[in-house]
Each structure stands twice: as structure tokens, then as C-alpha cells.
């Protein structure tokens, strides 16, 4: 049986109190920085919402619709992929690798290309929302489908029934909590995807409004839009949580945890099979890439295949110049993304650790951290950059803030799942909070921390490139925006390849690190 975990105290008063403190802090920050034109306090935001209420409502409806359709498509895709992985275990690694590579596509580049493909309308928004959603649901489902206790499956087999009965009677329900958790994480991501899709030249929606407000340096409106988006995302998060509780699905015991036997993303310690897998994965990616272009009959003017990218970067006479331009921008972006990523992770985990030594504070702040996780920080990027300068600090801050909230929420939640009996054991020995932390809570937090560190890789790149695109005018973000408008699609596709490969590699690196650390410090947390 799964271990019972410390129950979540639904005592709303401390949460309410913490929320008030936070709002007061927000107001204080806004007042203190009033001359920097970055923050709008809660009062100003409320004012803006009241003033532009009907406009915000209409735009929200439009964005919500795209997000919902994309969310639905993304989740159906996730279920199909998980079904394939379950039915054909040999293909699982390959399916996971493909899913990851497509999840790592940089929205800043795919957005404009989708815009050219779809023209006006909500195609790009829906596609990006689906792309932003499917991977987390897929991962959650995979863990859930596998985390089923063996004796439940033996029960089905002892009556002579096969895999289909297993799926219907046991696995489907056993993975429901994981599926719900995937939906909960996916809902805000879908909203963000839809908004970024609207940045690429939609006519209506919250994203369009956001761009306009930013371009006009309308601080209040920008924050009013971000607040609205956050509120809607948080509402979706709670809605799915409530739905899960209605269906009798509690929180899953382990979320997005890794498997013990090697990462699902290539690069296994066994170099031989790792290499074969990597080659297969590259072939599969190329196959899907070419297949999509041919299958959808896309014009070769903007739809570039692998051979075009190869020519552009390697075999063309101008390849050296092309490479120089691309990689200058690439290093620029990476040198801002990685510090921001590390700072965000450190601050998120650090605050979670600080909070958890005060258990009441931790349970009071968890709902708030979850709500803040949903803020589409990216949409406020230009304001940060304007306030902090076009230099490194602005972009690094944006990246860090983007990573900070999901990490904080995941770590708090991970530590909350420290098994009750373990904590009781520490209490019987009158262990100090520090001992508790080192021996029980940090190991419990580790899988959640690493899961969010993995998922944060594409978001960090998204934050950096969006800031560059909309504000700083440097790095890959600006390069991609520029090439989209000058129709230099070879460069754009090359940029996509470089960024997707980079994100996948960093993800795999974090995954290997995760395996090492969990193996040493929290081996019981690895799912078999």
C-alpha cells in the first residue's frame, strides 16, 4: 500500500493572512518603486481592471477559448502517447524522447512560423497551447500508469484476465490522481501558450492587449492583464483539483518522479545502447519533421527541412558567416538563461526550505505559491527589462522569476509529502528541525525539486527569448523575431534546431544529475 502522508490542513485563515501580507508587500513594492514604472500595486491594478473591465472580459474569453481547445488537443495527444508507451514498452524511450524534443521547441520561433502557416485566426494560439500542455500530462500519466502496486495487477491476472482488464479495472483509476495533477500543471501552461501565440500577430485576445499595453508602457494595464491571466490560470488549477476530489482522486504519492533504470531521455550510462537510442531518436525526429512538412504540404518558402538547415549551417558557401551570426546570438542568450535558471531554482528551493522549518507558515503559503505559479511572468518581461536596463540583469531577473514560483510550489508540495510515520519517528526522538530537514524533508523534496528543474529548462529559454524578442533586442529572441520579419526562414529553422537541441540536452543533463543524486540520497523515491 502507498504510505499515508501528512494531511494537508485546509485551515484557510493562515492562508488568508499570508495572502494579505503578500498583497501588502506588493503594494509596498509598487509604492517604493513608483518612479521606475515597473510595478503597479494591487490598488492600481484593481482600478485598471474596473476601468477596462469589459475589454478584459472579452479578451479573456477569446484567449480562454484558444487555450481550452489547445489544452484539450494536448491532453488527448498525451493520452495517446502514454497509451503507445504502455502498450509497446520497447518504444517507450523513443516516444518519451520525441515528446521531449517537441516540448523543447522555442515558442518565439515556432510562433511566427505557425502564424505564416495558419495566417490570421487562432491556429498558432491553439497549437502553442497544445504544445505547452501535452508533455507534463504525458509524464504524469506515465508515472501513474507505472506506479500501480504489483498485487493489484496480480489480482486481475489471478482471474485469468489480461492487459486490457488491467487497464480498465486498475491502471486507469490508479493513474487518475497523476492525470489530474498533469491537468492542473497543464492548464496555466496552456493559457501561457495561447498568449504567446497571440503575441505573434493575432487580432484579439489577452496577448494582443498585453503587447499593446507593453508597447505603450501602460504599467497598470500590463499588470492588470497579468493579474487577470494569473487569476484565470489559478481558477483552472483549482477547478481540476476539485474535479479530481469529486472523482475520488487524492494527490498522487509521487509526481513526475524518475525511473530507476536509466533516464528516459537517452544518454544512459551504458554508452552502447545510449548511442543506438540517440541515433534512433535523431532519425525519428527527422522523420517526423520531414513527414509533417510533406504531409501538410507546406510551402518550401517558409517550411525548411533538415537538408535546408544542414546547407545553411554546414555545406553552404556562406555557412561560416551563418554559423557566426547564429552562435553569437545563441551564446548571448545562453549566458543570460543559465544564471537566471540557477538563481530561480536556488531561490525557489531556498525559500521552500526556510518556510518548511516553520510548518504553519509552509502550509499557509503553499496555496499562494501555487496561485503565483500561474502568473504568466513572460508577459511582464518588457517592464522588467525597462526597469532594470537592457543589460544582463533584466533578462536574468525575468528568467529567475519565471523559474522561482513553480520551483517554490513543487518543493513545498514535495516536503509536505514527507511520510507521516517518518516525521512521527523524528518527533519521538525530539529531533531538531534541522535534523528533520536533513534526514526527512530534503530527501522528500528532492524528486519534486528535480522534476521542476527539468520542466524549467524550456520555460527558462522561453522567458529569455521572449524578453529578448519583446524588449532587449539581443540574442536568439531578437534574431528569431528579425528573421521572421525578413523572411530568412533558413536562419529561423536553424535557430529552432539549435534551441530545441540545447534544451533537450540540458534536460537530459539535469535528468542524469537527478538519477545520481536520488540514487545516493533518496533511492526509495525512485519509481521502479
Amino acid at each position, binding site marked *: 500500500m502507498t504510505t499515508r502522508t501528512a494531511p494537508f490542513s485546509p485551515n484557510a485563515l493562515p492562508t488568508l493572512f499570508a495572502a494579505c501580507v503578500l498583497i501588502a508587500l506588493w503594494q509596498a513594492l509598487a509604492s517604493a518603486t513608483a518612479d521606475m514604472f515597473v510595478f503597479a500595486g494591487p490598488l492600481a491594478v484593481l482600478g485598471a481592471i474596473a476601468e477596462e473591465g469589459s475589454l478584459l472580459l472579452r479578451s479573456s474569453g477569446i484567449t480562454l477559448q484558444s487555450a481550452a481547445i489547445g489544452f484539450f488537443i494536448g491532453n488527448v495527444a498525451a493520452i495517446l502517447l502514454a497509451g503507445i508507451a504502455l502498450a509497446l514498452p520497447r518504444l517507450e524511450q523513443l516516444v518519451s524522447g520525441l515528446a521531449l524534443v517537441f516540448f523543447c521547441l522555442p515558442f518565439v520561433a515556432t510562433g511566427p512560423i505557425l502564424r505564416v502557416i495558419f495566417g490570421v485566426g487562432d491556429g498558432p494560439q491553439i497549437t502553442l497551447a497544445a504544445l505547452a500542455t501535452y508533455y507534463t500530462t504525458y509524464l504524469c500519466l506515465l508515472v501513474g500508469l507505472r506506479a500501480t502496486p504489483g498485487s493489484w495487477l496480480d*489480482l486481475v491476472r*489471478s*482471474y*485469468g484476465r489480461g492487459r486490457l482488464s488491467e487497464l480498465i*479495472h486498475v491502471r486507469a483509476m490508479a493513474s*487518475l490522481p497523476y492525470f489530474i495533477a498533469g491537468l492542473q500543471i497543464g492548464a496555466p501552461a496552456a493559457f501561457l501558450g495561447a498568449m504567446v501565440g497571440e503575441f505573434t500577430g493575432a487580432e484579439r485576445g489577452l496577448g494582443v492587449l498585453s503587447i499593446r499595453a507593453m508597447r505603450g508602457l501602460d504599467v497598470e494595464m500590463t499588470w492588470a492583464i497579468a493579474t487577470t491571466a494569473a487569476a484565470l490560470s489559478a481558477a483552472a488549477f483549482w477547478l481540476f483539483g476539485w474535479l479530481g476530489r469529486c472523482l475520488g482522486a487524492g494527490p498522487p504519492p509521487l509526481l513526475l518522479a524518475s525511473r530507476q533504470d536509466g533516464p528516459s531521455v537517452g544518454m544512459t550510462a551504458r554508452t552502447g545502447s545510449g548511442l543506438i537510442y540517440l541515433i534512433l531518436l535523431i532519425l525519428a525526429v527527422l522523420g517526423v519533421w520531414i513527414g509533417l512538412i510533406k504531409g501538410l504540404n507546406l510551402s518550401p518558402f517558409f517550411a525548411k527541412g533538415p537538408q535546408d538547415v544542414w546547407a545553411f549551417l554546414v555545406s553552404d558557401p556562406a555557412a561560416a558567416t551563418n554559423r557566426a551570426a547564429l552562435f553569437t546570438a545563441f551564446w548571448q542568450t545562453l549566458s543570460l538563461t543559465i544564471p537566471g535558471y540557477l538563481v530561480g531554482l536556488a531561490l525557489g528551493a531556498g525559500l521552500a526550505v526556510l518556510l518548511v522549518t516553520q510548518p504553519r507558515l509552509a502550509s499557509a503559503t503553499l496555496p499562494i505559491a501555487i496561485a503565483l505559479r500561474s502568473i504568466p511572468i513572460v508577459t511582464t518581461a518588457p517592464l522588467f527589462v525597462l526597469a532594470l536596463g537592457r543589460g544582463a540583469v533584466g533578462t536574468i531577473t525575468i528568467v529567475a522569476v519565471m523559474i522561482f514560483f513553480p520551483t517554490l510550489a513543487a518543493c513545498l508540495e514535495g516536503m509536505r509529502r514527507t511520510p507521516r510515520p517518518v516525521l512521527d519517528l523524528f518527533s519521538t526522538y525530539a529531533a531538531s528541525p534541522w535534523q528533520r530537514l536533513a534526514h526527512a524533508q530534503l530527501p522528500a523534496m528532492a524528486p519534486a525539486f528535480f522534476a521542476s528543474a527539468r520542466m524549467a529548462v524550456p520555460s527558462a529559454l522561453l522567458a529569455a527569448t521572449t524578453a529578448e524578442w519583446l524588449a532587449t533586442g539581443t540574442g536568439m529572441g531578437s534574431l528569431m523575431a528579425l528573421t521572421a520579419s525578413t523572411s530568412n526562414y533558413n536562419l529561423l529553422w536553424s535557430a529552432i534546431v539549435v534551441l530545441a537541441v540545447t534544451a533537450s540536452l540540458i534536460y537530459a543533463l539535469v535528468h542524469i544529475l537527478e538519477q545520481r543524486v536520488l540514487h545516493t540520497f533518496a533511492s526509495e523515491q525512485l519509481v521502479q
Partner: protein
Amino acid sequence: MAEREASMPPKVVCKGLEKTFHLGGRAVDAVGPLDLTFEAGRTTALVGPSGCGKSTLLRLVAGLEKPSGGVISIGDETPEAVTKAAGLAFAFQDAALLPWLTVRQNVALALKLARRPADRERVDHLIALVGLRHFAETRPAELSGGMRQRAAIARCLVTQPGLLLLDEPFGAVDELTRTRLNAELPTLWQERGTTTLLVTHSIAEAATLSDRVLVFSPRPARITGDFDGARHNPAARPALIEAIASALGAKSGVEPVS
């Protein structure tokens, strides 16, 4: 009508039965080689040191594990054929109740898995027999360990199997409840003369519930003691308990429990 569904208790024969697990290149011999016959309609208790391969033996008989060598026949059939026809039921060491189903749904699930028509009356009858009448609508998380195991036994019996494989069905229960369950539950299947394989850690339980007691060696499981049970013969129990304990102690190096 219930009688029509009931399968006849089969005789179980193991010939040269062996099981070896392979764990990352390391071979673990869990069972055998064993030559064994379990007579139809009799209850056999299996005792042995922890980790000696008792659960593995039951899983082999249930067809949940493939033998590395030898054959098992249940009646004239293979374990796979018997499970396909839902001719046996397995009580797992950890009860294996599905947490999202109520006790009644958990019991009814066995009928569903066995492809039998739903039979609310029979389900409720069995729930009442194991003393959970007032908990039919309860979910497993709200039950005590002993109640869960009683629910699991009701689930085993609902399909009226000819062969029962019980893996420490009273394992998670305190001594007092255990004695009571021992007195009440076995009559439910023993009256019908079901062939029963009962794994237990309790020597007293083995002596009082069975027609025959097999004592196993440490891994790989081989027979080191074969005694007549004292189910119908209370007077023989103390001597039998003594004999089982010394057969266990001598081979396992564990102090016999009195």
C-alpha cells in the same frame, strides 16, 4: 444456482518444480526442486522462514509466475487454464483491495473479473459472513487491517473457486483478532471442501487449521517437514506444534517460538 457455478476442488501436483529469479545477472533460486501433491479438498499449511519462497510457490500455482523447471497440474489442467476459468482465488499478503472501490464493489469486482453475472445477493451474503455487513459501503482506507483482510477473503470466496491460495491472510492482524478469525473464517471454505494452500508465519495457526503441515527450508524452498495437521484433533496439537517448531528451528537457525 450458486451450486452450478462452484468448481469441484482439484488435486494439485507439482513435479520437479523449480523457480530461479534473475536479478541483473545474479541468479536467485527461490523454489525447489519440489515434488508435491496437494490432495483435493484438503487444507495444507505452508510454513518456513521469511524469504524462503512460500509466496513464490503460491504464485507459481496461480500461474502468476512461470516455473524455471518442472510442471504444475491442477486437476488435469495447467495453472493458466484454471485461472482463465476463474477456478482459483488468491488472497494476497497485502489484501490488494482497490482503494477507490467500496468493500461491496471490491467483492463484486471478483465476479466481474471472473466474467460471472453480477450477483448482489451473494456479494452481500459473503460480506455479512465475514462480519462486514455494516461496512459494505466503506472504502478500504477507513478499515482496520483485519477488516481489510476479511474483505479480501470475501472477495476470494465470492467466485466459489475450487482452489484457494491464501498468502498469510491473517498476517496484519493482532493475536486476539487472529484467534477469532481462525475460529470463524476457515469453516467458510473448509465446509465446502475447497483445496486450500495456506501460507502462515504462525505455527499454532498451521497446526489448528490444516489437514497437513509442510515445513520449508530457507531459500530455495525445499520440504524439511511433512506432518498431519490437527484440525480435527485438538489433543494432538501441542505435540504437533512442538514438532513443527523443531523442524523450523533446526533448519533455519531461528529459535523456535513456543
